[in-house]
């Protein structure tokens, strides 16, 4: 464990979950700060500025959503929220408030590590201020500089909106992007409730990029929340 390894802040009131997270994170070489309540957590954000926050949405003293908002007022540190199934609206609210990703309880360590990796990488890229010019996953290759999309050796032709949609997803590759976020970035702020546009365009994109659109490999649906472009 070195000082250069990322510092993770866990804000979670359940001791059993904290215990399991502690074990898992330690064994993966992360440093750890724990907070039992939202108040403690917010204080910890200022005293030990973390590289990533794992935040439970159901805290006893303050809503997890509120914590996200307060952190976002002054920090861009990645936040991964934890919530139970059936709380889609809470998840969306947290994501729209600035959280980077979410996990549904119960979850496995593998999933958590994958999400954390993606979030840390994005935050690192943000600090370097620049995306890589070419995005590649499986047979899908997006050349951002030349605005070209390739599937295996075949170039794929997209409409302007399809391309914009794909680019937003590529920019957040590996992370979930909410319907609202996608609509705002592709169609503009006036369209944030017109989710049928999005669904139709995602459908079109899948028909062009996936070999079986009904069993997608790249462009996954997060039911009730948004979409995720796989990146590994």
């Amino acid at each position, binding site marked *: 464990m070195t000082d250069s390894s990322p510092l993770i802040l866990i804000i979670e009131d359940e001791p059993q979950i904290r215990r399991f997270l502690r074990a898992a994170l330690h064994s993966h070489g992360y440093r750890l700060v724990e907070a039992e309540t939202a108040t403690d957590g917010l204080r910890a954000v200022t005293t030990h500025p973390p590289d990533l926050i794992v935040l439970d949405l159901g805290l006893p003293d303050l809503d997890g959503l509120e914590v996200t908002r307060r952190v976002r007022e002054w920090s861009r540190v990645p936040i991964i929220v934890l919530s139970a*199934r*059936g709380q*889609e609206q809470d998840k969306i609210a947290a994501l729209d408030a600035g959280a980077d990703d979410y996990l549904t309880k*119960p979850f*496995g360590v593998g999933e958590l590590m994958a999400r954390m990796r993606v979030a840390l990488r994005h935050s690192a890229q943000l600090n370097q201020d620049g995306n890589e010019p070419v995005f590649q996953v499986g047979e899908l290759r997006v050349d951002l500089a*030349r*605005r*070209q*999309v390739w599937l295996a050796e075949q*170039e794929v*032709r*997209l*409409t*302007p*909106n*399809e*391309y914009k949609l794909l680019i937003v997803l590529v920019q957040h590759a590996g992370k979930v992007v909410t319907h609202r976020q996608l609509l705002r970035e592709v*169609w503009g702020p006036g369209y944030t409730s*017109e*989710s*049928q*546009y999005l*669904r*139709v365009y*995602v*459908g079109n994109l*899948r*028909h062009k990029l996936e070999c*079986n*659109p*009904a*069993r*997608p490999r790249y462009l*996954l*649906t*997060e*039911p*009730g929340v948004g979409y995720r472009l796989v990146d590994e």
Partner: protein
Amino acid sequence: MEHRPDPDKLLARMREEEQQQARGKLKVFFGMAAGVGKTYAMLETAHQRKREGVDVVAGYVETHRRQETEALLAGLEIIPRHVVEYRGTSLEEFNLDAALNRRPTLILVDELAHTNAPGSRHAKRWQDIEELLNAGISVYTTVNVQHLESLNDVVAQITGVIVRETVPDWVLEQADEVELIDLPPDDLLQRLREGKIYLPQQAERAIQSFFRKGNLIALRELALRRTADQVDVQMQDYRRDHAIAETWPANERLLVCVGPGPHGARLVRAARRMAARLRAGWLVLYVETPRHLRLPENERDRVVQTLRLAEQLGAETVTLSGQNVAEEVLSYARQRNVTKIVAGKPESPRWRELLFGSVVDSIVKNSGLIDVYVISGDFGDTEPPPAPPPETARNWLHYLWAFVIIEACTAVSWLLFRYNLEFSILVMIYLVGVVAVATRFGRGPSIFAAVLSVMSLNFFFTEPFFTLAVNDVRLWPSLVVMLLIGVIISTLTVRTRQQAEAARTRERRTAALYELSRDFASTRGLENLLQAAVKHISTTFESRIVVLLPVENNKLQPWGGVIGWWGTTVEERMVYAPDAGDQGVAQWVYEHGQMAGQGTDTLPGAEALYMPLVGSRGTVGVLGVLPGQPRRFQEPEQLHLLETFASQSALALERARLANEAQQAQLQIETERLRNSLLSSVSHDLRTPLAAITGAASSLLDEASSLDTTTRAELAQAVYDEAGRLNRLVGNLLDMTRLESGALQVQKEWQPLEEVVGAALTRLHQHLGNRPVVTDMPPDLPLVPLDGVLIEQVLINLLENALKYTPADSPLEIRAYLSQPRGSQPALQSVTVEVADRGPGIPHGDEGRIFEKFYRVNEVGSGRGVGLGLTICKGIVEAHGGQIWAENRPGGGSVFRFTLPLDGTPPKISEELQVTSNEFSAA
């Protein structure tokens, strides 16, 4: 301090309760003509009531701009009128709904006989008043004597003015109070001249016509008599109620015979007056002879109208069919204990009566103890005699045939003539020809044949040959005989044929009713009963049908119309979808238990006729009938038949519902028992994974040192797997709880089904392993309104189920397609989704039960699940307005299908966004 009830409040409450329970009281201000001061008197009385503290409002008061009247109206609360747009003019009408909502104790509604503007709920104002009374609101109203239905013709006779707006007599008779507003004719005329009734020019015209002094005297007498009758009735009621001993004649009953003649209406009115005076019940009878079928359309219509009038006047109408009118009338009269028969004076010419006798004569002759009243028909024919039916091409063909047959006889006779046969033999040959024509082609051609025969005989076989000169006297009797035989045989044939026709018609009706009852007797289940009812009623009446059944809050909904599922025996042409307006009519019918809609006096603007389905415990639903021919149900007989069908259906529906309830109760008991036995099963299912987890975890804890790496990994895997199973179990139990408590909210959004399927398959990725999954969704499948999260859950449950029950390498198939509904609404399409497998299939008889809670196929099997997955699917699909069912597939395996209705308007993906032509291309 002692708390004593406030007497005023107590009284008010009693009044309120009384109002809610009882029917309102009707008081009629009755007058002989306009201008006697009915409205004024009504308003005065209303003010008096108001001073007594009664809640009085003016519903509709016509002041005719008379100043005194307007002044009186001033102090009263007025219900705003309802403005109806009709052909460019706006008509002001009484606002019934506003009045019902306001619920006063007493309401003033002027002009009882008024006809409402088209498009109003009821055709007549007295029907509005009926509804008010039924709602417990008392009504003051006004009417003039000439508006009474039974006096209509008398008034017309006196004044020469036919009054169109009439009120059935019973409306006045059932009034709790009738107050006569009387004014001597001279005073009335004085008021008229002073311009207190009409504007001066109008007044002058009125004095010339209706308001002649003689008329007024006669009308005054009518009004006075009428009121006296009413008082008399009250007196008799009083005597009866107070048990004043007096001998009463046996109950009188009147039978009125009506025919297709023009005097039916007059006869019925006269009989009505007689019946009212005698306080007798009365029947109106029409005997349908085979001749009825030959009557021209307008005469048949007239019968229908007469019978309808009789019904409106309160008679019971009966149609019988038979050969002999007099016999039928008398036997029916005896059967119903009729004491007096009323018939019209015969209209046929004298010679005919002498020859054939008349119906009235034979009734009189055979009536025995029954009195017979014959009422004159000297009203003058108001309608021209019916035009003879036009000759048709068919008729000409008949004459041609007659010619051919007779000339064939000539040919035969010609051959035989050479053998010098007797003339009479030849006559017989021709007779055969005439008989042949008569049996086949009717009267005209047979007369033609007889004449032609005699001419041919004359021309070919009597001297002088080949001329038409008559020397032979034998020809005359031949001609007479042939004519007679031709006429007799053709008449008999026609009559037999008509009787057969009538019998067939009746037979068909009886058979239809019999088939309906038989089908009902052999049918189980509400759905099947409804199908049978729709099928039979539609076929018998050549109409389109809808059955509306109450759902939540007694709101009616067309059966099958919502999702377009009509079962297997109902075809599209048998049903129709009522629009919003018609559904409103149906709702009214359901709430009031009365018929309404097309062809009735209530809400006649509706597209179809609506009839309440009244069972023994109340109205169970409403039957809507959209007749193929518009005037189908004008005939009371057809309407009665329809009523019979409706009541049969209602009883069957009620029976089914009761059976359902009993079954539900039984089910409840069984469910309760099942729940108890399954509680242990659930707790077993919950404890098994917990036991495995506890065991594995404790081994890892206690014997960490002694375990090798593989065993440790195995134990950890067991903990992981069992925790997953526990998670699913708890998830299902929670979903079930949410579904059952109604906490489940469906948030529908239009989205491609493909996406939901994709999400489900992604979530089951690990679980599916290498299972081949075929997905088949047409690219042009429309967007579907659904809750993505919930439908994903349905698919996951169905797929998990398939994974659980089928061999590890058997393929799974997911298919979706647009399904055309069987209903008549093209808008209500739905998308069907299938999840199919090639496993062992569903045990026979379990197809329905697998959706039941806690039901598991192969109960003995190991604890694979709690049996909630499919129940949850069912709940979710039904919350979407769809259906789910399972079948075995041909070729092995099972298929689960569910439908998602495409209700609402799909969103438009606007053009500027759908960039297709302007393809983005890389530089």
